[in-house]
């Protein structure tokens, strides 16, 4: 869909920028191969991948899907056109009309074979396929409907490969009236078919962008900010300076994905692969929604950062205004927490900060020391260090509850329902099942929250006959 492709575009641009900063010799290495293929375009791009040696032409390991052409065409005419192969695209002309049912049922059915074929082709180019990333929005028709169709397709065709989904949730003032329907219908699919979901809310991205603007324009700090270090910036990438309104917000998501995969791509003293994220942060299959936060949002031009600033980075990761959804993890219950650190940070810095922050956080009784950590030596462009925190925390509950409320407001009046119901394969039960699935999820979080203030009683240990 539009959101997915726009975010994706920013992601590929920043990924190239990151690898260019690290890979000085232009050799196609293991790190690059995680996201890019190396091909010789003289043979029309159909030639076998080149596994070693110099970089010839990098092709993103990606599928771009949109049911209207505008966004994808723009990408193909822009500075990233050589990164994508025409065979990686699936487009149509008329769009999904912000209708989940059109995306999921109509286009799903129509393009099923084509999607499977292109997925297989992309998978064949991989030595070892570990994970799929899906980037989409929940509120529209294509990303939401066709996106979740692709998700269940991935489960059928590649059951062993992890499915990570980055979902942009609509805000309350979203201009698409039917976004609650689309989102709730999509949630059911995410509940059932995703391994891990990183929900993102536009409001939070917007707030972060504003915060940065205010900071730059206030002139308070006296030092200049390094342009490339802004979590919202495209500086140094291939894209021209003229930035579109959503670019800054999309860059944040792109940075999230880069930091998430950094320890899998680059070396460090404590590596973390993507399968470890799912293993450590998903204690029960359905509770796979992770709240994310990125710090720092920018780096000042000062070179030497004293430890006090380093500690500030850890504190910020737990503050409300750095979360990518409207949530406050500090006042809710943690099921698990992961800290992915990049750059010049050592295990003692990690330990010190965990000890410092632990007392102010509430962890569930059976996971009191539930921290997963990783240290990657390569920092992001423009920073000396950075932190991505992923939390499995009951603070996602309010987001889901509001979504359900907005859904019920429309559903009770049966507003706009007919647009969905006249699509073949759609029935009223689709709606009732979807909202039931959402309610069940909310109830699971409720039950966990209820344990928060209970006194802790450890289960009795096994007794051994001496």
């Amino acid at each position, binding site marked *: 869909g539009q959101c997915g492709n726009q975010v994706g575009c920013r992601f590929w641009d920043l990924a190239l920028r990151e690898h260019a900063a690290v890979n000085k010799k232009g050799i196609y290495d293991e790190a690059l191969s995680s996201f890019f293929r190396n091909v010789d375009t003289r043979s029309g791009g159909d030639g076998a991948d080149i596994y070693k040696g110099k970089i010839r032409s990098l092709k993103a390991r990606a599928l771009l899907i949109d049911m209207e052409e505008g966004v994808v065409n723009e990408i193909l005419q822009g500075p990233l056109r050589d990164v994508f192969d025409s065979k990686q695209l699936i487009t149509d002309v008329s769009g999904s009309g912000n209708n989940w049912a059109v995306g999921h049922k109509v286009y799903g059915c129509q393009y099923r074979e084509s999607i499977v074929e292109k997925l297989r082709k992309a998978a064949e180019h991989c030595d070892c396929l570990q994970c799929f990333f899906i980037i989409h929005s929940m509120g529209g028709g294509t990303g939401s409907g066709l996106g979740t169709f692709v998700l269940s397709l991935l489960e059928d065709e590649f059951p062993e490969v992890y499915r990570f989904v980055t979902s942009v949730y609509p805000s309350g003032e979203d201009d698409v009236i039917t976004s609650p329907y689309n989102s709730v219908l999509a949630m059911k699919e995410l509940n059932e078919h995703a391994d891990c979901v990183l929900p993102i809310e536009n409001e939070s991205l917007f707030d972060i962008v504003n915060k940065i603007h205010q900071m730059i324009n206030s002139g308070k700090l006296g030092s200049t900010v390094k342009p490339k270090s802004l979590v919202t910036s495209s500086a140094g990438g291939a894209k021209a300076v003229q930035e579109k309104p959503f670019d800054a917000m999309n860059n944040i998501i792109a940075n999230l994905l880069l930091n998430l995969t950094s320890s899998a791509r680059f070396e460090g003293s404590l590596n973390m692969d993507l399968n470890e994220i799912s*293993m450590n942060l998903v204690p029960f299959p359905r509770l796979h929604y992770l709240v994310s936060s990125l710090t720092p949002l920018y780096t000042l031009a000062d070179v030497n950062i004293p430890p006090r600033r380093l500690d500030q980075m850890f504190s910020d990761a737990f503050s409300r205004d750095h979360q990518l959804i409207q949530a406050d993890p500090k006042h809710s219950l943690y099921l698990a927490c992961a800290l992915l650190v990049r750059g010049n940070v050592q295990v003692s810095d990690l330990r010190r900060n965990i000890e410092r922050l632990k007392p102010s956080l509430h962890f569930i009784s059976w996971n009191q020391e539930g921290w997963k950590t990783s240290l990657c030596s390569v920092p992001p462009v423009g920073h000396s260090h950075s932190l991505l925190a992923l939390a499995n925390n009951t603070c996602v509950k309010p987001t889901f509850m509001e979504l359900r409320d907005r859904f019920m407001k429309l559903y009770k009046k049966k507003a706009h329902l007919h647009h969905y119901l006249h699509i073949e394969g759609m029935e009223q039960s689709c709606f009732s099942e979807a909202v039931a699935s959402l309610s069940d999820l909310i109830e699971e979080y409720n039950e966990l929250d209820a344990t928060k203030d209970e006194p802790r009683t450890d*289960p009795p240990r096994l007794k051994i006959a001496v």
Partner: protein
Amino acid sequence: MSIVTVQLGQCGNQIGHELFSAVCRDVHGTHGLCSKKENESYHDACKERFFCQEESEVPVARAVLVDMEPKVISQTLAVAARSGSWKYDDRSHFCQKQGSGNNWANGYSVHGPRHKEAIMNLMQKEAEKCDRLGGFFTIMSMAGGTGSGLGAFVTQCLRDAFPNSFILNHIIWPYGTGEVIVQNYNSVLTLSHLYQSSDALLVHENDVIHKICAQLMNIKQISFRDVNQVIAHQLGSVFQPAYTAEGDSDYSRNPLGDLMETLVPHPEFKMLGLRNLPQMPENFLAYSTFSWPGLIKHLRQMLIANAKMEEGIDWQVRPPHPGSSSRSTSKPLHFNTSLANLVILRGKDTHSVDLGSFRDPSLYTSWLSPQDAFNAWRTPRAFNKYEKSAALVSNSQFLLQPLDSVVGKAWNMFASKAYVHQYTKFGIEEEDFLDSFTALEQVISSYTIL
């Protein structure tokens, strides 16, 4: 006799590399403080034990490197080769791409069987390079998926393929406040399985080594490299050549066998702890002098008070009063009862050191006599620039509290069934967990009533 070191997972490979570096540095150092002949003898014994020097210019470490993702192994190989003083055999490694995902079941039930042949081939090759195989030394962490799960599987395979060789597992106990959320599950599964196939488990706790780095080594921003170097130093102080008996003229040729013989009299008791002193930043060494009586006194108190390092020892803890009727009721709190102990002395005047205080029967459980329970190895050759150094390898209640803590946390988590679906996905069922818990509660019980 030679030892084949098996480096498993990121931790095992990182530590293994530091171990070979430390051993090499010690052997080439000029601070042996002993005769040239002694030095040469030490050098030869060490070489035979850890390195092979066929046609290569530099010594080649006797090691097999195993990991389920490629980055760490390629780094380890490269850094060693760059050192110019030793290297690994380029063919003696096995790696995959997808990692084990911190999942013990993935390492044990999926990767293990799938890659058994390839891995065991490498072991066989490395064993054949040895004139006489003294045994296997496997280095692994308990917290992750490869070292722990695949490590447990490989240990089992080694036991089956080499039934008469010694297997010593070096285990890294993770930090209490996690590196990995499911580390307690992984630890419980690893320990219970290793207990069946391994001869002994030599444990290093990350929390303890971290404290040593902070308080004794004065390191401000402690990295894993710092931690690993301290661990390598401590391992070196045990495994570098030493004379195992009075009047021996040759360095012991069977270090693993000797270790097992002195420290593991009963298969129910396999948990070995390690203490070493003195420990300080290298630039302090020139300004420090030590006396053997002082070092021995500290080491003994560290043993009976279960102190993790030479600072902050509780001097109030005393052995139980001799001659009291019932030992168990008169045993003071926090007293660390030993089953067997081994002290290794290196450096100046080791021949004259009085170790009588370690032969005190009140230190030991009643069913072994102190003559059998205590042993000492010595060498006049100083280790790693320390004029005098002493190591203690102890089969005692050292690890009782950490073990109990890990089992308790794992049990707590298991009661809520959290994360169990991640293991059943790969074939480790709830009954397997219960078997592991039972096995470890048995070990805890045995050590408690020592």
